[in-house]
């Protein structure tokens, strides 16, 4: 069920049952009214526990939320943590030295300023500095997190990166894989890291992904083919 909502619209909620509010919804502390605060498609789902409500909307600036997978840039190093930027000019988040696999007081991670990391948001209270971790805290394994070496970062809208990461039907990565081998890390903070064997392939991937943003899915194949034709002399049919 999805309908268009504009900030301030009235939403019919069963007041008898518990409600869980997701992104785009807000409980005003003064009036105690539950209202959508973003323009987008309203999603209400029912479960045994209660009703879950969120608004699906696209934006450019990321605010940390627990569980999000993000690509960050190390901007500072302190006594026991790194300072990491998830989007330019936003409040930085912290990455503890202990939030790495096999971390101990003696065994310090070796990241330097300017490095890219793939991480998970583990703490995001709006009054406090958000925290991220490069380790699966349930079992201590690296789980694919950590330093991203070489490659290139593409900036995209948050809605687009969510489609890339969560929508298995989204054809972009499958189409790209037809043309070259690549490694990818998608952060829902609007940063996509991509690495290929050759610079020209990286450039083609970069341009394809940036350009497919905001285009209908039917056009993806054509756009990607065009860019690969530009950088390589041969292209398989």
């Amino acid at each position, binding site marked *: 069920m999805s309908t268009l909502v*504009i*900030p301030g*619209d009235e939403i019919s909620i069963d007041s008898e049952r518990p409600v869980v509010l997701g992104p785009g919804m807000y409980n005003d502390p003064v009036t105690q009214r539950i209202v959508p605060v973003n323009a987008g498609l309203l999603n209400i789902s029912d479960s045994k526990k209660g009703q879950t409500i969120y608004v699906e909307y*696209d934006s450019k*600036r990321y*605010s940390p939320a627990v569980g999000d997978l993000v690509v960050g840039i190390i901007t500072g190093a302190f006594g026991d943590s790194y300072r990491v930027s998830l989007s330019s000019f936003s409040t930085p988040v912290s990455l503890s030295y202990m939030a790495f696999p096999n971390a101990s007081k003696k065994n310090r991670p070796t990241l330097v300023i300017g490095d890219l990391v793939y991480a998970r948001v583990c703490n995001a209270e*709006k*009054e406090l500095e958000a925290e991220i971790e490069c380790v699966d805290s349930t079992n201590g394994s690296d789980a694919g997190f950590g330093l991203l070496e070489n490659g290139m970062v593409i900036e995209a809208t948050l809605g687009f990166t969510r489609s890339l990461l969560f929508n298995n039907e989204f054809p972009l990565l499958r189409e790209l894989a037809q043309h070259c081998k690549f490694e990818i890390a998608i952060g829902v903070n609007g940063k996509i890291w991509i690495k290929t064997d050759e610079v020209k392939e990286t450039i083609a991937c970069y341009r394809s992904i940036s350009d497919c943003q905001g285009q209908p899915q039917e056009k993806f194949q054509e756009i990607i083919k065009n860019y690969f034709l530009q950088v390589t002399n041969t292209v398989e049919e």
Partner: protein
Amino acid sequence: MDAQTGYLENVDGSCLYSLNSTKVISAVTGPVEPKARQELPTQLALEINIRPASGVPTTREVNIQDKVRAIITPILASYKYPRQLCQITLQLLQSGETEPYFHALELIACVNSTTYALVDSGIALKGIALGTTVVISKDNQLITEPTDEILKNSKSMHVVAYMIENNKPSNLLLMDSYGDFDENDILKILEQSEIKVNQLNKTFREYMKEKINNI
């Protein structure tokens, strides 16, 4: 009236807005890290900058800034972003009015354009703010969305901005009047502007519907 959101690449929300011959670009960035002196411990700080169509900003632009701030502050869900900053920059491209005498048309263009840009940016809003200019002409006619010529020949002019919640005007955010008028005129103006704001709200919704369906 014409609005186009997402006009600028490097800001979070933007809108190119034109009404008659007034034209303005609004840019919204936020929530971002504030300077130490702007930071508010429990809520979102708001910085508004207005750049005139020609010359440098003067006291006139600061006056418009303060009015835009008075309108925009109540619509922000500001407690959702403690110690953050929202920066709004408005660049006028065409004034559309005789600048030394009036600022009514620019003010309304700034407010409406900011609303579009704020929604585009994804900053949490409790409602939306839309406004209109109404003038009473010398022969006691009410005219909404006047031109410079009509402003010059008016008996009084009024800027009215409403907060829109749940698809209807819920709160009068600003009423700014100049000239010769009485209580009856004010009531008529409020009635007329509410009708106009309802129309603007309808246009706004249609625009957003189209934009979201395109994704």
